[in-house]
């Protein structure tokens, strides 16, 4: 089946998912207590003023009608406007895509750059000291709180040896790269242990297989054996593991965004939840859903591209 038809089919399949999520988030957001008006009015909120603002925001109408309007707007490509700063939600999300996108890709690339060499090192001599070290050290990344890692990186590379900006996203592209390096490294420190574990396991399995014997019998160079024969096969299994974790990461980068002052979609969501800014929460949830679905689709496409045995059905 051609790529296009497969991608088309998968995208159509996601419609029920997106619909399911829109219903779920709409009901949950409207059910959990805490009035947006109460947040908008701050300390002056009296019950009757809250009623006035709720009416102004149109959230005192029955949920079903609100949902229908929400879907109607959706079809016209608008996710509504934020309660607090009256900006269209789509503009708010799009405004943060560059930051989130670069941070995510930076995190993935760095974790691959960390995971690949370390797992090759570990798998080359199973059980040796280097294998134990490679398995033990990244666990520190998994265990330590992200805030701690972020702050330590800032102290070390931001203030003590000012190689990287302490915060912000910069204006020009090179400045973007410099400013997302430390946050991406923080993400990579969390993501790479999971990648190392999966890569190492599949590499050990492959090293025992016969086609590595054939390759060795051919007398081709060790680097070629490692990269062409071992790695190409090992990466296949780890792509799915990476896919699952990237999907999870999209929603949980808020701590890194906060510590490094990179305005991503994670903090947009957290601020909106605290302020009960329904349109933003709904809009960002749908955005997350779309991203996760695309990430899963991309994972499957890469998986099929890497492994000829897998047919796109």
């Amino acid at each position, binding site marked *: 089946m051609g790529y296009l038809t497969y991608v088309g089919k998968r995208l159509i399949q996601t419609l029920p998912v997106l619909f399911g999520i829109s219903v779920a988030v709409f009901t949950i957001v409207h059910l959990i207590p805490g009035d947006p008006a109460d947040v908008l009015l701050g300390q002056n909120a009296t019950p009757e003023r809250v009623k006035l603002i709720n009416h102004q925001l149109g959230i005192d109408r029955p949920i079903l009608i609100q949902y229908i309007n929400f879907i109607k707007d959706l079809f016209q490509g608008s996710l509504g406007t934020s309660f607090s700063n009256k900006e269209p939600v789509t503009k708010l999300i799009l405004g943060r895509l560059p930051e989130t996108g670069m941070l995510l890709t930076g995190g993935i690339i760095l974790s691959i750059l960390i995971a690949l060499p370390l797992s090759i090192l570990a798998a080359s001599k199973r059980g040796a000291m280097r294998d134990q070290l490679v398995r033990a050290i990244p666990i520190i990344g998994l265990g330590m709180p992200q805030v701690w890692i972020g702050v330590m990186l800032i102290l070390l590379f931001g203030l003590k040896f000012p190689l990287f900006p302490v915060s912000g996203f910069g204006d020009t592209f090179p400045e973007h790269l410099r400013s997302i390096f430390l946050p991406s490294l923080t993400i990579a420190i969390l993501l790479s242990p999971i990648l190392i574990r999966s890569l190492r396991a599949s590499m050990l399995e492959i090293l025992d297989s*016969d086609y590595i014997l054939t390759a*060795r*019998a*051919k007398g*081709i160079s060790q680097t070629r054996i490692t990269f062409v024969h071992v790695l190409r*096969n090992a990466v296949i299994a780890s792509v799915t593991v990476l896919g699952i974790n990237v999907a999870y990461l999209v929603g949980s980068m808020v701590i890194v965004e906060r510590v490094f002052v990179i305005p991503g979609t994670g903090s947009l969501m957290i601020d909106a939840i605290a302020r009960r800014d329904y349109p933003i929460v709904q809009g960002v949830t749908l955005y997350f859903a779309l991203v996760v679905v695309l990430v899963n689709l991309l994972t499957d496409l890469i998986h099929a591209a890497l492994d000829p045995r897998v047919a796109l059905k």
Partner: protein
Amino acid sequence: MSTPLISVENLCVEIKTNRGLLQAIRGVSFDIDSGDSIGIVGESGSGKSITLKAVLGLLPNNAHVSSGKIYFAGQDIAKLEKKARRALLSETAGMIFQDAIAALNPVITIGNQIAEVPRYRLGQSASQSRQTALKLIEQVGISDAESRFDLYPHQLSGGLRQRVAIAIALSASPKILFCDEPTTALDVTIQAQVLRLLLELRRNSGLGIVFVTHDLAVVNEICDEIKVMYAGRFVESGTVDSTFNNPTHPYTYSLLKAAPDPDASVHRLFSISGEAPNLSEPVVGCPFAPRCFAGDTHCLTSEPELLKIAHSESACFKSKDHDKWAASDSKSGVK
């Protein structure tokens, strides 16, 4: 006679297992030169395929050559580190395995796998190596090479996959091909085609063959010499004709009897009772003694050496009265 390309003297191999140190090979010697064709026969677990891997430096991490010599072009390379020995030998020796699908990289096209040695070791350019590969594909009898070049291993049949494995082994134009039961997993008709291919290669390009199998019929068809292996040692070696017609070791004799003979009408198949010994304990006496019909107390205490007898060699105290065995069988009504 010029010195043989590869000659193995008294090779011993130890394997670290969680049941202790296993003496997989206990002193094996043989020579192989281009044009020769040696069959190594024995039950599974006798150490025949480990012998090949030991010579070519393909032993797994938990196994190593403990003693013995491997002469290549007159120089002992047994002590060389595995990787160095592999690099040296890979110009003259190739190897093919039993399960072809497992022996081919599943994610690379067969064409590229065949072209890999010419391209990355022999330094040929991309187009040159592609031509070499296409020629090799035809040479191993795969039709329509151009369209098959870009297929993946899982898209080929068992027989075709084995031919690709052979093509890969031939890509370094070796003088000797080590075969580790390449036809066992194939059905008979495909098996015959692959064997015919090996014979042609031997005849046309003088390819030396070391053929490991448990199937005597295959050895009979393809090999000149035969080495019967039991419990990590050669117990009989000689020409195929003499050994088949006149076995000088009880184990070889029993093997030949056990082999089903299509044209003879036989009521009951003969099988050798008992099983191969566990090589993690030291061997006392002749390992085959417990299952031997010709053995006596002496065989239990010391292990016979490989000595010349008639026109082959045999490691058995009773080998000199091998011609009586056939007679006593007919008496006991078992053919």
